[in-house]
């Protein structure tokens, strides 16, 4: 039962193959038995999940079931859930029971979905290996010595380990696509503004976007269908029509033009990785797509621009974590400054403190123009590159990561080395475009992801292309040997 996708569970529940309580119980017991190995959950809400499952079954019995009624998933612990511990992977919020629901949570609740709990993540979504979580690292189900990627490492690992069929996640610089690639699952980062950020704890507000980690593009379409749409509580959430994402999955991609950025296929990508991605491109050509080489001349500036903009925004976003109204407060503060400095000094981990300090420095008097303004200008150049490319092609394809999953501890000594992990994913966030990571091969027995990038609010075409690839290949069906 645990191998079922969301689409399959939806059909099975409708057909009465099993009940929501049955599958929920099965998945909860898997979590209980196996998650000590993965550490993908921070909080398991078993009782609430079973209550939701029972309510779903009653609704079905009354003839009121809809597509999502009774389907179990889990949420990245960055989404506020009313009455449930919401930690964002930090000691700072290790005692924070959120007093309200994020819009994403609201929508899944309204659709009748069941939530098994809250998933591990890099602290405040800062990291590419899930090693910065206060709640400990997450193991990659393909090799438990290796990282699952980050920051949505818990989401990717839980889906790869078949603990849940799908999970919510967020992506600020690659935090959905990179862990999805390293765990061999399907990640979707929609257009900035496609999904409400209300209740999603902010890291870098102009880059953060909620999305999905699933085992198929078909499931990503189903999740996005629930999550997408206007929200009056988020000024940056766009009032754009939400198409039926499932309806276009089976469209032919014949004649679709796919652009390959020259900058994404250079020396920093190993021959093995190149080969896996090229094979996937060849698959698309077989399906009738046209391939065209394109250029994103400012691609190399994405990481430096990101490491100004994201830290600057986070330095302000995390100022509210001050030990006054919620969250961690240091023992016996001597005065207000002591309260601030020790609560924050003790409550935040090293990577978070580093980024806050970089941001504070970049914004400080005398440096604004050289750093922040410059980064915003480069951001425009990067956006313009994509805009020009997307005039010529329908989709852009390339690698997600420079390497498959690396070992725990391998990149923790130098933060910059960790930052380079996101070299192919970060530009997308700066431009606000939607992207996906689709399993497309293996290197040394570890999964490799293909990145697909679409135009603004064109998630339907992305999902269509990903689904067609998954109809023609079985990389997304591969799973770790012990599962």
């Amino acid at each position, binding site marked *: 039962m645990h191998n079922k996708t969301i689409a399959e569970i939806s059909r099975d529940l409708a057909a009465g193959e099993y009940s929501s309580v049955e599958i929920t119980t099965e998945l909860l017991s898997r979590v209980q038995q196996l998650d000590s190995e993965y550490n993908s959950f921070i909080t398991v809400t078993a009782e609430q999940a079973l209550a939701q499952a029972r309510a779903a079954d009653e609704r079905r019995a009354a003839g009121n079931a809809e597509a999502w009624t009774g389907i179990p998933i889990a949420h990245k612990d960055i989404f506020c859930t009313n009455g449930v511990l919401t930690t964002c992977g930090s000691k700072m919020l290790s005692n924070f029971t959120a007093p309200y629901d994020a819009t994403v949570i609201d929508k899944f609740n309204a659709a009748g979905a069941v939530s098994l709990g809250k998933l591990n993540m890099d602290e405040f979504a800062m990291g590419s290996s899930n090693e910065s979580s206060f709640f400990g690292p997450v193991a990659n189900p393909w090799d438990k010595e290796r990282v699952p990627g980050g920051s949505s490492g818990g989401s990717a690992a839980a889906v790869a380990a078949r603990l849940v069929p799908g999970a919510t996640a967020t992506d600020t610089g690659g935090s959905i696509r990179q862990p999805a690639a390293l765990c061999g699952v399907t990640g979707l980062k929609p257009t900035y503004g496609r999904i409400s950020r209300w209740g999603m704890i902010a890291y870098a507000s102009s880059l953060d976007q909620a999305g999905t980690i699933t085992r198929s593009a078909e499931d990503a379409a189903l999740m996005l269908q629930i999550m997408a749409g206007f929200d009056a509580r988020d000024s940056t959430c766009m009032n754009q029509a939400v198409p039926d994402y499932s309806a276009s999955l089976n469209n032919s991609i014949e004649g679709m033009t796919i652009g390959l950025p020259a900058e994404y296929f250079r020396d920093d990508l190993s021959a093995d990785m190149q080969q896996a991605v090229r094979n996937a491109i060849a698959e698309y050509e077989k399906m009738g797509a046209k391939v065209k080489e394109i250029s994103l001349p400012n691609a190399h500036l994405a990481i430096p621009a990101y490491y100004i903009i994201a830290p600057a925004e986070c330095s302000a976003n995390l100022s509210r974590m001050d*030990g*006054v109204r919620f969250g961690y407060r240091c023992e016996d503060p001597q005065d207000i400054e002591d309260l601030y400095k020790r609560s924050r000094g003790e409550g935040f981990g090293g990577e978070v403190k580093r980024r806050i300090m970089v941001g504070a420095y970049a914004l400080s008097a005398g440096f604004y123009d050289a750093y922040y303004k410059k980064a*915003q200008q480069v951001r425009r150049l990067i956006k313009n590159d994509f805009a020009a490319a997307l005039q010529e092609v329908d989709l852009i394809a390339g690698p997600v990561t420079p390497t498959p999953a690396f070992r725990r501890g391998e990149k923790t000594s130098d933060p910059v080395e960790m930052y380079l992990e996101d070299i192919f994913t970060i530009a997308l*966030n700066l431009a606000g475009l939607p992207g996906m990571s689709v399993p497309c091969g293996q290197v040394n027995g570890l999964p490799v992801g293909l990145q697909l990038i679409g135009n603004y609010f064109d998630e339907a075409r992305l999902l269509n292309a990903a689904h067609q690839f998954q109809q023609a290949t079985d990389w997304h069906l591969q799973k770790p040997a012990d599962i």
Partner: protein
Amino acid sequence: MALDQQQVRDIADLARLQLDDNQITEYQKNLSNILDLVDQLSAVDTSAVEPLAHPLDAVQRLRADEVSESNQREHFQQCAPQTENGYYLVPRVVE
């Protein structure tokens, strides 16, 4: 660009982060490395480029002036470190 220890202390103060002395050295090294990384930007000619603060060219939406929130003090203060008579408490602030 390399930061000296005093600069690291000043930034930590500005961001209200307590760091012990042995951490200062580590942050000095890491932050300097990060600044070296971002210094690549200085080579780019952006003189004619308008800064981009937000990925979409969208404009601010306006909310009608209506009171939509009701008192939830008890609920919100359940997660507070210290309160009294509905106030959040902090060590005495001198003005």
